[in-house]
């Protein structure tokens, strides 16, 4: 009944928005053209982003583009395109007028992340570095496109992949994983159980990503109070926020040799009449068992499909849109004769999602817009033993709602976002003693920005209340199963100072709050696929973290460099601790007890890119995390699953639409291991890659060829739960063809 009431309110909201927010006139327009700075020829397929309104469009093949129905005011228009430096431009929109602009982009060999920021330094504004975020897009996204989101991101310094075979992998940022890294798709939580266990896949396919963003600090507080590791947002734009003036999109085909894998994908969007925009994307992925230098990794195949359809209704007052999506994934967990299942486990995931978004422009000097989002996700997965018996089933129903307003020049604040967020989650597990339970969360947040000369300031605050309610209250062997209520305040502040000549210094503080999840509180039962018998703790305290970060950046049109140090300390860091004791009910599985300990994560990371001799780019990065937990009366001990010291060095040659390069990844031995965890040897792995793009007619063709682990070296990922069974994949050739239209 609760769902239906919310649904009814939302539908009424969609039907009568113009009557509530009656202003529909006094709008302006932007029309323009994108050109190549060197040749002054029109440049097509440029991705344009009107940042304050979060509206996007893609330029026609003749370089023309338009944004309509824009409230008067100042806006930032950013433009990115494969093989070109990104640029940002401030535009003033007047009522009932059309603003015409020409955007000139300069060819570049640097990676997309670097060129985006290099472009904005032309404005000499520290504000352009807001949120201290990183973005993977364009050339980098195609070059690094892996089977999983995690594999696509793990070239960034400080990001590693917790994995367990081909499909289940989740990003670990600066040693922090699980719920400390929030994964979003188009700003919405995924509603899966990937944060809970290593064998659970993230229900986002990287093939659908237009770009992948990473945010830390104050900006993360809009999405959760627990994301001290960071927020990963996969931008898919299922609901168009602006009316495209033509149909455009991409079609992709990728093949891999190491697992005889293939992916086919289509992403397209366009207008229907004068006020509706349609967006659809879909992909099918299949792969057989992974080949390693020591043999084939049994039962590591994958077959998945991820499809979405979105429709938006766009009017001068803003837009309202709906989207539905489906994610199906069947994959295998390799067998472990010593770990509880000698024949492996098959996992079948189904996720169906519905979401709605609205944005209303306000004719107000301070408050510019009101946005609402509403989503409902039904997630289910079952783990099937070799005999065909269903071992464990997980079901999660998640409903989220959020309302935000964006403002400008309010008191001494330049701009900011204020909002309310709510979530209700129904969690059920079959095949264990874990009781069904509900969790309800409510939060209020504000993220504000201020520029004082060369100093850019950001601050965020979020108060969150969470209530976990089991269906029955009783005395269990793990403790008193009962309702728990948690509330806490999270805060964050960030300051970036522009010293000029490309030098920036910044610092970020974050105080995080994380209520124990339902699985951490109430779990009790076997989990064959992750080789564990999980035991929750109904008495767990909320996790509180204090993060500090200091960094120095240097960015010019021909070089970028950054070094940062961080220190994250936790009070009651909640994690499943391997007790080393066999379960009394399932002796082949060790007991993993959820426990809260004091913990400290500290480290350093650095990256650089230098362009030389016009066509050559040298790049590199390294990262190191030192993590420890405090044991009662035993001092400090290493935490498990912490990445080793590692880095990479790359060299790239780029001319016109052609790129060729190589990259060497080096990792040191990890001997600081947690309880019952073995060390992992260091390794050096060599990769080479080539890319070519060709513009012809109304299409932009791109081809990416990668050769990974070219010497078929045996190496192991310390964060792989199956590293003792098999090493990482052997030599792999992958080919990605993507056509933009």
């Amino acid at each position, binding site marked *: 009944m609760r769902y239906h009431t919310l649904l009814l309110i939302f539908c009424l909201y969609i039907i009568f928005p113009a009557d509530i927010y009656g202003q529909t006139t006094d709008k302006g327009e932007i029309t323009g053209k994108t050109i190549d700075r060197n040749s002054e020829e029109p440049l097509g397929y440029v991705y344009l982003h009107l940042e304050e309104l979060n509206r996007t469009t893609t330029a026609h093949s003749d370089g023309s583009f338009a944004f309509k129905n824009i409230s008067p005011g100042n806006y930032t228009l950013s433009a990115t395109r494969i093989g070109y430096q990104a640029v940002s431009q401030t535009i003033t929109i007047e009522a009932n007028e059309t603003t015409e602009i020409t955007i000139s982009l300069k060819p570049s060999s640097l990676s997309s992340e670097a060129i985006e920021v290099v472009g904005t330094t032309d404005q000499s504004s520290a504000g352009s570095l807001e949120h201290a975020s990183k973005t993977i897009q364009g050339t980098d996204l195609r070059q690094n496109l892996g089977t999983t989101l995690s594999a696509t991101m793990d070239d960034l310094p400080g990001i590693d992949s917790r994995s367990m075979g081909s499909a289940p992998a989740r990003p670990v940022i600066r040693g922090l994983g699980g719920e400390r890294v929030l994964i979003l798709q188009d700003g919405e939580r995924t509603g899966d159980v990937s944060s809970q266990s290593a064998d659970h896949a993230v229900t986002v396919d990287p093939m659908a990503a237009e770009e992948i963003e990473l945010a830390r600090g104050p900006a993360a507080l809009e999405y959760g109070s627990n994301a001290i590791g960071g927020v990963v947002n996969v931008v898919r734009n299922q609901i168009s926020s602006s009316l495209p003036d033509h149909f455009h999109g991409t079609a992709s085909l990728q093949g891999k040799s190491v697992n005889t894998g293939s992916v086919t994908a289509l992403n397209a969007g366009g207008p229907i009449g004068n006020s509706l925009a349609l967006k659809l994307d879909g992909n099918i992925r299949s792969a057989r068992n992974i080949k390693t230098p020591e043999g084939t990794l049994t039962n590591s195949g994958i077959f998945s499909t991820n499809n979405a359809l979105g*429709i938006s209704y766009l009017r001068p007052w803003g837009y309202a849109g709906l989207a539905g999506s489906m994610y199906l994934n069947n994959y295998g967990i390799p067998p472990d004769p010593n770990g509880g299942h000698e024949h492996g486990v098959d996992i079948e995931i189904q996720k169906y999602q519905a979401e709605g978004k609205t944005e209303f422009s306000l004719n107000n000097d301070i408050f510019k817009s009101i946005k609402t989002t509403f989503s409902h996700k039904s997630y289910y997965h079952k783990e099937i033993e070799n005999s065909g018996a269903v071992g464990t089933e997980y*079901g999660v129903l998640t409903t989220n709602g959020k309302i935000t307003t964006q403002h400008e020049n309010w008191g001494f604040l330049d701009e900011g976002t204020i909002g309310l967020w709510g979530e209700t989650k129904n969690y059920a597990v079959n095949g264990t003693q874990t009781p*069904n339970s509900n969790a309800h969360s409510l939060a209020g947040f504000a993220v504000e920005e201020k520029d004082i000369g060369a100093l850019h300031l950001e601050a965020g605050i979020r108060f969150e209340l969470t209530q976990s309610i089991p269906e029955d209250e009783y005395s269990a062997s793990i403790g008193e199963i009962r309702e728990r209520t948690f509330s806490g305040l999270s805060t964050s502040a960030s300051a970036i100072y522009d010293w000029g000549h490309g030098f920036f210094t910044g610092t970020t503080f974050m105080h995080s709050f994380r209520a124990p999840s339902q699985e951490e509180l109430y779990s009790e039962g076997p989990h064959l696929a992750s080789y564990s018998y999980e035991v929750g703790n109904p008495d767990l305290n909320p996790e509180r973290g204090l993060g500090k970060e200091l960094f120095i950046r240097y960015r010019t049109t021909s070089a970028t460099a950054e070094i940062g140090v961080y220190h994250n300390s936790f009070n009651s860091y909640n994690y499943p601790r391997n007790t080393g004791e*066999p*379960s*009394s*009910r399932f*002796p*082949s599985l060790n007991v993993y007890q959820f426990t809260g300990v004091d913990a400290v994560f500290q480290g350093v990371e650095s990256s650089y890119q230098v362009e030389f001799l016009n066509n050559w780019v040298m790049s590199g990065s390294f990262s190191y995390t030192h993590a420890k937990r405090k044991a009662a009366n035993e001092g400090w001990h290493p935490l498990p699953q912490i990445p080793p010291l590692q880095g990479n060095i790359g060299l790239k040659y780029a001319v016109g639409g052609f790129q060729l390069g190589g990259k060497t990844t080096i990792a040191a031995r990890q001997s600081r291991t947690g309880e019952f965890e073995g060390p992992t040897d260091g390794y050096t792995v060599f990769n080479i890659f080539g890319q070519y793009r060709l513009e012809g007619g109304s299409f932009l063709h791109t081809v990416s060829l990668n050769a990974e682990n070219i010497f078929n070296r045996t190496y192991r990922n310390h964060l792989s739960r199956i590293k003792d069974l098999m090493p990482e994949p052997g030599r792999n050739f992958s080919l990605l063809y993507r056509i933009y239209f």
Partner: protein
Amino acid sequence: MHFLNLLSIRTLLAIALFAIFVIVGCSNPANSDDEDHLHAEGAILQMNGEEILRIEGGEFVSNNTSLEVDSGDETPLITIFFLDHDGETFHPGDDHYALNWDKIDTSIAEIEQHEEDGKWSFHLVGQGQGETEVRFRMWHEDEDHSDFDTPAIPVNVN
């Protein structure tokens, strides 16, 4: 007319939203009404009314840690009892449970059950000299999974 057009578009959007929600569903697919799992924490094997093997906390705590039988012969009736949290023996009292076993090499030994002996009793039959092992499981038949496993018990066929 213009208002009607707008209204119809928005109504279509609302209907589409309803349709999506109906497809997505509002009931948890993993919710099961039959959630009465039994919680065994150990087991004992009795032969002729005498305890021959005891398992607590996932480990053997009896002096004897294996089963023996001669090739071509069968043991007297062996009955498995489960131990609850307080160490009391029990048999699942409903029809939803049965004894299940795996890991055994049937060319060396087999587990044989007779209906008249009850579903928690069995004979171990020696098929050929050698060593194998057997794991007994309290099988939850409705849910098609085990609610309790013994460790793998060594089996010697002389």
